[in-house]
């Protein structure tokens, strides 16, 4: 059954610092994320939601608890294997774009392929394919700095998508965008989930965005306070009191 889960986390604990300044970001969180699912991790600033995402994305190691990815224990994986997993199976979208300035849009998009060691021609082909999909093909040669915010975030999604990942981790993907462009970016992400079956893990404090996901995991003070499955829509706000009461 385990291998069916893309990611299976049990009792994750993580703390930063020591002594008086010790801060427990996570105090025992268990989460399962199934293939093709869209999951929102919701919480306030400092609730531990970003830490949870970092652990799930193998960017960090938990102090306690186990994490299995596709049936393999993350602890048993070598550094190299972890790097390869992140490179090949995961895509990342951050609130800030982290695009390399003075480098073309295409070069920004194909960075993961470059890291993977793919040949120049194949890289370009894949990169242009993704840019066309995101309707940015005409901007391929432009410097990343010349684009608008929405275009930049589309480039970032292109970069996350170019290696054909199983899972895209998005940390506040619309946090830096106005509502209209934010919606466009959300539409792209959910469309990818529908058409290509890419699992989405979205960290956000935006209830509307969270409501569009299959499942919402509410985090407060390092603990899961509510894990709800719902069909899209209306009741997102109604769930908050349940979380608050816990």
């Amino acid at each position, binding site marked *: 059954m385990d291998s069916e889960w893309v990611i299976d986390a049990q009792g994750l604990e993580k703390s930063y610092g020591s002594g008086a300044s010790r801060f427990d970001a996570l105090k025992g969180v268990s989460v399962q994320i199934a293939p093709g699912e869209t999951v929102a991790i919701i919480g306030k600033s400092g609730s531990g939601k970003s830490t949870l995402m970092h652990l799930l994305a193998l960017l960090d190691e938990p102090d306690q608890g186990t994490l299995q990815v596709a049936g393999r224990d993350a602890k048993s994986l070598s550094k190299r294997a972890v790097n390869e997993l992140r*490179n090949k199976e995961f895509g990342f979208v951050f609130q800030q774009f982290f695009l390399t300035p*003075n480098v073309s849009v295409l070069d920004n998009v194909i960075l*993961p392929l*470059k890291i*993977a060691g793919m040949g120049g021609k194949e890289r370009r082909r894949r990169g242009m394919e993704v840019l066309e999909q995101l309707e940015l093909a005409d901007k391929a040669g432009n410097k990343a700095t010349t684009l608008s915010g929405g275009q930049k975030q589309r480039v970032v999604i292109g970069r996350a998508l170019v290696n054909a990942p199983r899972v895209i981790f998005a940390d506040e993907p619309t946090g830096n965008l106005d509502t209209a462009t934010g919606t466009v970016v959300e539409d792209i992400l959910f469309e990818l989930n529908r058409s290509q079956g890419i699992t989405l893990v979205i960290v956000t404090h935006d209830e509307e965005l969270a409501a569009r996901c299959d499942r919402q995991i509410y985090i407060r003070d390092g603990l899961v306070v509510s894990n709800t499955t719902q069909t899209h829509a209306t009741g997102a706000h109604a769930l908050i009191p349940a979380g608050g009461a816990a």
Partner: protein
Amino acid sequence: MRTKDLVATAISNTFRSKLRTTLTVLAIFVGAFTLTLTNAVGAGVSQYVDAQVGALGSPDVFIVTQASDETAAGDGPVKYDPNGSASVSSQQGPPGTTTKALTEADLTTIGDTAGIVSVDPIRSVLPDYIEYDSGTAYEFSINATSAVTTADLTAGAQLDGSATQAQLVLPDTYVTPLGFSSAADAVGASVSIGITDILGAAHTVDATVVGVSLESLLASGAGANDALIAELADAQSGGITTAVTSYGVAVAHFDTALSADAITALKADLATQGYSASTIEDQLGAVQTVINGIVGVLNAFAVIALIAAAFGIINTLLMSVQERTREIGLMKAMGMSGGKVYTLFSLEAIVIGFLGSAIGAAVAIGLGSALSAVLAQGLLSGLPGLNILLFEPASVAFVIGLVMLIAFLSGTLPAQRAAKQNPIESLRYE
């Protein structure tokens, strides 16, 4: 990440902050420029000295004299020995000393020593003047060891030791005064050499000019082959054949295939037989040591400049790592290993080093060649054949390689810092 991509990325990253890169490259430029020039001076002067050594003697000869008795204080005077005590004043010993003469028996002994191919006594001849075509006569001297030397020729050919014809290599300063239009014009001409014998009678000896040589710093006078020296010596002796039966100095040729160790052993062999043998290198070793010392000091200054530049590289790259924290974090999040990040930043350091050193070396070669040409015409015209700046491809390549190595070492600290960066810390923005 493929090596090709790493290099390409490193190069393009280097040019991202153009002003900063330019300034760092300039600092390296100064060091590389200086180092290339000082190396060139060393090579130029060394080459000149080598040419002078060639003018003094071939590399395969010993200058052999009798070893002087070392009379320790309190031992009293050495007893007279009618067979071996003839003394001859010689230029070869330390100033103010005399060395004992070499007799024919000594020459045979030296010649029979294993490893010695041939031995010839040096007969010194003192001509009075030289004239051409009954023109003005000029004072003239012959270098006694010229038969075994290699002249720094501007025209003609080297002396032929086995020729029966009397041959002369003329210093180029004599060309115009004697009435030749050029050095090439002098080659093949017959000149008369005037010499006074020991009884006071004047003689002239004719010789053919086979070559014209540049004036040498260390060996003055014209070159004469064995035939000419023999003719002059005969004229000088005034028909008294018993006058010279002993010689101050002999020239011994040894096997050119001998190694440096074998030559040292051969010297020791001759020493146990009572002869002191020294090669031209021995005699000029001190000169070369001084030159190498001066070049070494100059190089040290250049290296100090490079060390200063190295701190510039460290600073530049540290700033670059700082500025690109997020980029590094992102690359690591996307699966780039710490080793590759390290390589990337090291390569950036090497690219900066290469830029600075290649430009520095190129400018040094351009400016130096021009300067060298100007100096050869002006300030250094008194030292013909001296090419003060000699750029050897190997030493230029060595300088570039050295600077790139220094740059790589400077890049170690920043690169390590970049490689160790935690992707989460780098990407944090809350």
